[in-house]
């Protein structure tokens, strides 16, 4: 039997490290989100998958409510640069999400090519990663990041003495 002591500090209490996976408002594609959920789970993160067509306000509210350790925005319909530049600043104005990595990736423009200036703008707007090269190296880098987030968040959870076996 496991006893859980009353939590002295509810804000800092953490469960398993968690990623929030989301599409953007105008993008209806799902497979990219299902795939990224599995990748995150394999790297040790629990996942909240908001699915496709997530309006900006809902994404912000869910992030604030759920306090994920990583926010993963994925979009492939060609509006990603535009919509990322709209929603990421909204996430970054929330103090609750200070220090939470936000990454975006997929097919972000309509041309099928990386658009360096727009990628830089996304970084400047507060994205910690822009995965828009469309190759296997993007996935490798993302896996590394997810594993690192899982590892450090797990470490933080282990240091928080809230549970006795």
């Amino acid at each position, binding site marked *: 039997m496991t006893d859980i002591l009353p939590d002295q500090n509810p804000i800092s209490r953490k469960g398993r490290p968690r990623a929030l996976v989301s599409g953007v408002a105008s993008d*209806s594609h*799902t*497979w990219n989100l299902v*795939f990224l959920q*599995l990748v995150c789970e394999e790297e040790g993160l629990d996942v909240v998958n908001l699915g*496709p067509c997530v309006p900006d306000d809902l994404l912000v509210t869910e992030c604030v409510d759920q306090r994920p350790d990583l926010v993963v925005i994925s979009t492939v319909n060609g509006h990603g640069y535009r919509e990322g530049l709209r929603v990421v600043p909204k996430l970054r104005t929330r103090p609750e999400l200070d220090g939470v990595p936000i990454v975006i990736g997929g097919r972000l423009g309509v041309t099928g090519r990386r658009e360096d200036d727009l990628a830089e703008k996304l970084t400047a707007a507060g994205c910690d990663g822009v995965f828009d090269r469309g190759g296997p190296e993007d996935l490798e880098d993302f896996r590394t990041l997810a594993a690192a987030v899982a590892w450090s968040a797990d470490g933080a959870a282990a240091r928080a003495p809230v549970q006795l076996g």
Partner: protein
Amino acid sequence: MTAGFGGFVADTAASGELVVQPRMGFGDVETMRVGLLATKRARAATAGTITVDSYTRVGDLESAAAALASGAALNGYPLVSQGVEANKELLSGIRDATFPVQVRHGSANPGKIFEALLDAGLDATEGGPVSYCLPYSRMPLNQAVDHWARGCELLATRGQAAGREPHLETFGGCILGQLCPPSQLVALSVLEGLFFQSYGLRDISLSYAQQTSPEQDIEAVLALRALAGEFLAGARWHVVVYAYMGVYPETPHGTASLLTSAAELAVRTGAERLIVKTEAESLRIPTIEENVAALELAGTAARAARPATPPPSSTDSQVYAEARRLVDATLELHEDVGRALLRAFKLGYLDIPYCVHPDNRGAARSHIDNDGSLRWADVGSLPLDGLVARRRSRPVGSTELVDALHYVRRRHDGRD
């Protein structure tokens, strides 16, 4: 020439030709017009397409208008924001009895799009309360059912009042694009067709998207035709096949081979219309020229194909048996098709594998069998007892999922 989109398709089919149609959509009137003209002039029996941009699809008309004003690239034509004059100008001299135009949109709340297309003098579109909600929207399914009920009534009454026979195609046979077993695609197509009919539409097309196995796909389209004959009495209907909607081949010979097999599927099963995909599909939004090339390739492949002789039985198949069971079990839940669909999803009688919408049960899983057929790995609560062995699937990993998603690409690119 019989009137309307359905009439054009029926006449073309009667003359022995397959109607081929692109999924084209561009943000500005000029390019959209060039695209429609190029479709009309393509060497094939074509129908035109206006695909709406995804801001308009989700009802974010502000963003659509802003993009239009700033000249930013859109991934489709903003039908509502362009306004009625621009839309009429777009169609003037292009749309006529030999070249009907369908509006494609993907909206769970299609009212404004339907009004805009009716205002522009158009009367053919597509979608469905389930097929444009579960995979494409976060809207609760019961709201989408209500929106679509009102949308169907609007299309039927305004179109018919103008002396036309408005046409509505269900996207139910394409749901999620890939990895949904064919029997459920067929069942959803029929159920959404019945939904349209119950709200006044009399001219309907039923879709089916090419999946992983040519043999199983033939079974599926024949099952769809048989069920449409049984359930849609009183409506004029035809079947539209979609070239594969999942991860598309990357090589020119791979894309050509997949599109050719889609055209063959359509001809062999007596389907009247085909939605093509282009060789650029795996990379980006295709150009007008790429669309025309795909239309002409599909048209040529269709002319070279022959209907299967003797025609395989349309009702003595696994796909028919499963689809029939899903349709019957759903319709038994409520006399109103919309309410029946809602209850079916709540009970898990309908359940789309991998669909993350909160109103989808998410217990059913699919897999690609050794013979290439798409089958149930886990039926969840689907009422398929006696038809499919009940087993619990093990969790699918990301590599396995990607493998299944890329099965068709590998096979047609010749890497299998």
